[in-house]
């Protein structure tokens, strides 16, 4: 069935990337940053250097493997931050209403008016490039959808019987939000989270490509492609593998997200983003 | 009733294809409607009454399909009519109105145009002529200020109004048969009676036969001369409305009649619990063996669990399907 295929293929692809990242130190042939031997610069793929070498003589295969760690870290952590921010804002806005709701809704609309890459760019502009800055920047840009979802779910669940019952029983607001409301919206949140991870990986790659994310010599797939651009006439193979890695990772996450959506959120009318 | 009946359904079987298996959602259903006659079809949700109606107008879509029996409309078997010809029949000689007036009309098109379409499609009218005829049609269904409302969009109308538009569309070309699938279920109670009256008046004025489908036995009894009761894809009883109320023969019918809350019953009979039929309608994939009603039936005996009762004809034009009828 179509549904299973999504989940299966997506899961497998993502698992491969995760394993590659986790086992990178074991699977890699060289140190991705230090082992740079200009004698082997720009070697095409071969027996010794499976994916070839770059302009600094570094083994691309090892760099791609280690790049998985960076991309996955950014993808998972930043999306986690996004989800937490989105859920906190959306839940509280929907639950308490009033001026707080107005404020959060206004903020959400504002965020939606600014293209996310531009916003991330702006934040990276004032922070020093690096992993932490990247996590902060990406963690602050993609929470709008989760927020809207959480708010909408809260508004519709708020009037349910069991929530009223909990209030009458004297549960504190926070307790109600966490124990009654949150569990009932986990499905769609997980779906958006998974798809968002794919987006975060792409965003990190883009920012690093622009030189505003992870800077060389660290093996970010994005910055590797930026180098590759300069070498495109002399060593075109450098362009293939980092990009392929990004593609496989994001494809896996997208398929996984789609598959999860079919299970967890069947009547979802959210746009397929 | 003399002459050929307008509609004759013989042993209709409608099946649902799931993977490689065929489930028979409707089986062995036979009914007849004479010209100008009103037949009611009653049953709970899921008993197959709606898909029977869809089969009659040829609107079943995969995974549902007619897999057996004959549907004779004016002597011709609908199953053998090629699609192009069937389209000429639809809306023109057989019409259907549906349950949800809220969503049954195209939201982007003025209602006048949606009615006018009928005249252009089937009567060869030009759009100008058709627009004028549409205003007349709206007046016929008692919509006030029809010349203005003709330009309204569906969302500007109430549910009752939209249902009137639906009726106008369905009766525009003077069809011989109108299939009404729960036309009032989604409407306010006060509006329900108006709509039913409208259907009754217009159909008798135009000589249109009506198949009225509902889960409401009271409503059906008011509108129809004869009533068929459906359960789990079978017609379990078919009698005149009077007979069904006075002396229901099938345990299911008895249950339905008994569960109708009656005004003044408490004064007459004292306090009684609201009667209900225990259990739920079985899904198509899990029909019980033997008589399909047996798990919910008070009178079920061994034979009921093994053998599906066949049709027993009762006197003049009545039938029942039960081992213990009577």
């Amino acid at each position, binding site marked *: 069935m179509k549904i299973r295929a999504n989940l299966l293929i997506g899961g497998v692809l993502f698992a491969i990337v995760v394993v590659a990242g986790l086992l990178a130190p074991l699977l890699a042939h060289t140190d991705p940053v230090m082992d740079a031997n200009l004698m082997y610069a720009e070697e095409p793929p071969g027996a010794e250097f499976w994916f070839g070498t770059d302009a600094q003589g570094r083994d691309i295969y090892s760099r791609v493997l280690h790049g998985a760690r960076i991309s996955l870290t950014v993808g998972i952590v930043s999306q986690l931050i996004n989800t937490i921010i989105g859920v906190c804002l959306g839940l509280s806005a929907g639950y308490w209403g009033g001026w707080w709701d107005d404020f959060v809704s206004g903020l959400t609309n504002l965020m939606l008016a600014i293209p996310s*890459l531009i916003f991330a760019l702006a934040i990276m502009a*004032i922070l020093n490039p690096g992993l932490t800055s990247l996590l902060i920047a990406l963690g602050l840009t993609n929470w709008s959808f989760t927020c809207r979802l959480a708010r909408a779910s809260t508004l519709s669940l708020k009037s349910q019987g069991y929530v009223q019952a909990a209030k009458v029983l004297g549960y504190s607001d926070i307790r109600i939000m966490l124990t009654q409301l949150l569990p009932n919206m986990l499905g769609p949140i997980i779906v958006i989270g998974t798809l968002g991870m794919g987006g975060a990986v792409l965003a990190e790659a883009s920012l690093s490509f622009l030189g505003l994310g992870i800077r060389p010599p660290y093996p970010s797939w994005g910055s590797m492609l930026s180098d590759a651009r300069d070498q495109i006439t002399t060593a075109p193979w450098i*362009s293939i593998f980092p990009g392929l890695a990004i593609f496989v990772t994001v494809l896996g996450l997208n398929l996984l997200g789609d598959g999860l959506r079919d299970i967890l959120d069947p009547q979802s009318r959210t746009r397929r983003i | 009733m003399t002459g050929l009946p307008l509609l004759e359904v013989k042993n209709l079987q409608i099946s649902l294809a799931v993977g490689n298996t065929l489930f028979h959602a409707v089986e062995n259903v036979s009914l007849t409607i004479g010209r100008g006659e009103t037949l009611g079809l009653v049953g709970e949700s899921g008993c197959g009454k709606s898909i029977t109606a869809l089969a009659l107008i040829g609107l079943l879509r995969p995974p549902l399909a007619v897999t057996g029996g004959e549907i004779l409309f004016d002597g011709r078997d609908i199953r053998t009519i090629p699609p192009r010809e069937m389209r000429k029949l639809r809306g023109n000689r057989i019409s259907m109105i549906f349950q949800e007036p809220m969503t049954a009309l*195209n*939201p982007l098109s003025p209602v006048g145009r949606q009615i006018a379409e009928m005249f252009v499609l089937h009567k060869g009218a030009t759009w100008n002529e058709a627009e004028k005829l549409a205003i007349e049609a709206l007046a016929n269904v008692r919509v006030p200020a029809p010349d203005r409302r003709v330009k309204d969009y569906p969302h500007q109308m109430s549910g009752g109004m939209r249902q009137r538009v639906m009726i106008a569309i369905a009766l525009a070309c003077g069809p011989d048969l109108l299939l009404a699938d729960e036309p009032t279920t989604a409407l306010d109670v006060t509006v329900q009676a108006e709509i039913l009256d409208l259907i009754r008046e217009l159909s008798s004025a135009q000589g249109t036969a009506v198949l009225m489908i509902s889960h409401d036995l009271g409503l059906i009894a008011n509108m129809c001369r004869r009533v068929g009761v459906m359960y789990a894809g079978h017609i379990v009883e078919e009698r005149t409305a009077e007979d069904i109320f006075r002396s229901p023969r099938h345990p299911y019918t008895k249950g339905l009649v008994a569960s109708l809350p009656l005004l003044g019953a408490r004064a007459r009979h004292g306090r009684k619990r609201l009667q209900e039929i225990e259990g739920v309608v079985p899904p198509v994939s899990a029909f019980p063996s033997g008589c399909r009603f047996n798990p919910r039936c008070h009178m079920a005996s061994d034979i009921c669990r093994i053998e599906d009762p066949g049709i027993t004809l009762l006197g003049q034009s009545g039938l029942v399907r039960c081992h213990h009828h009577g």
Partner: protein
Amino acid sequence: MAAFLLRRLLQTLPILLAVALIIFILFSVIPGTFASSMSDDGRSVIDAQVMERMNKEFGFNDPVYVRFGKYVAQLVQLDLGTSFRTRQPVTKVLAERMWPTLLLTFASMLFSIVIGVPLGFIAALRPGSWIDTLSMVGAVSGLSLPKFWLGLLMMYLFALVLGWLPSFGYGDGSLRYLILPSIALGVAPMALLARTTRAAVLEIMNADFVRTARAKGMSERKVVQWHLTRNALVIVLTTIGLQFGTVIGQAVVIEKLFSWPGLGSLLVDSVTLRDIPVVQGAILLIVLSFLVINTLVDVLCAIIDPRIKYT
């Protein structure tokens, strides 16, 4: 209708102001931004006197609200300040770069609509067929491709190996230079539109009013033409509006890759060189463009869909 347009445009003003505020907070208030921008420029530690002079010149010693007031006042007069780098008015710098970005954005959206929407239609009208499966697999792949990777590969193949198209730059503004960048930028929106259109068409095919249309005796072709297309388009149009925003944002990367002289590459260069006024101005302009385009799309929706009240 004009009133509706005006009203919607006015609604965008508060958002614009809020964005201006955020930008102001990010770049002008956070301490050290200015100082670091100067040192990153290659100069060594700034002489305290020079620093003091610059502070005076740019008004960094004034209290925050005064600075913001000045900032807004300048904005209203369409004065976005002066570029640190080139000493030219920011407005001039932006104006030069505006058209290439608009061109690129519209070209890629055109590409994505022209290919994506029909693809989605065809896939939905034959659900489960090989066309459907292939399109949807293609769509999800298109969404997962890094744009700049695709651009790089296309650049290699079509420009360097085959030599059919130029590999970078705006050139003389002719179409040849536009093709590679707009395709690279447009593939992802195309994939999304294909999926959205497919979902919309499927939803409508099963809608009640389509059933009514069939019951009227309408041919399947007429049903598709008259009922399906317009109703599906309404849904798709909203997605197109949102996609403009994504495309404008992503254009940054493509512009850098292809050395396309637009706002995006300007933004990146300015960020790298810490040319704050240009960064602020570029972001404002980009957001403004998105808001205007979105409003126009909304108006288009209102024209097609009578359910949206526009009086």
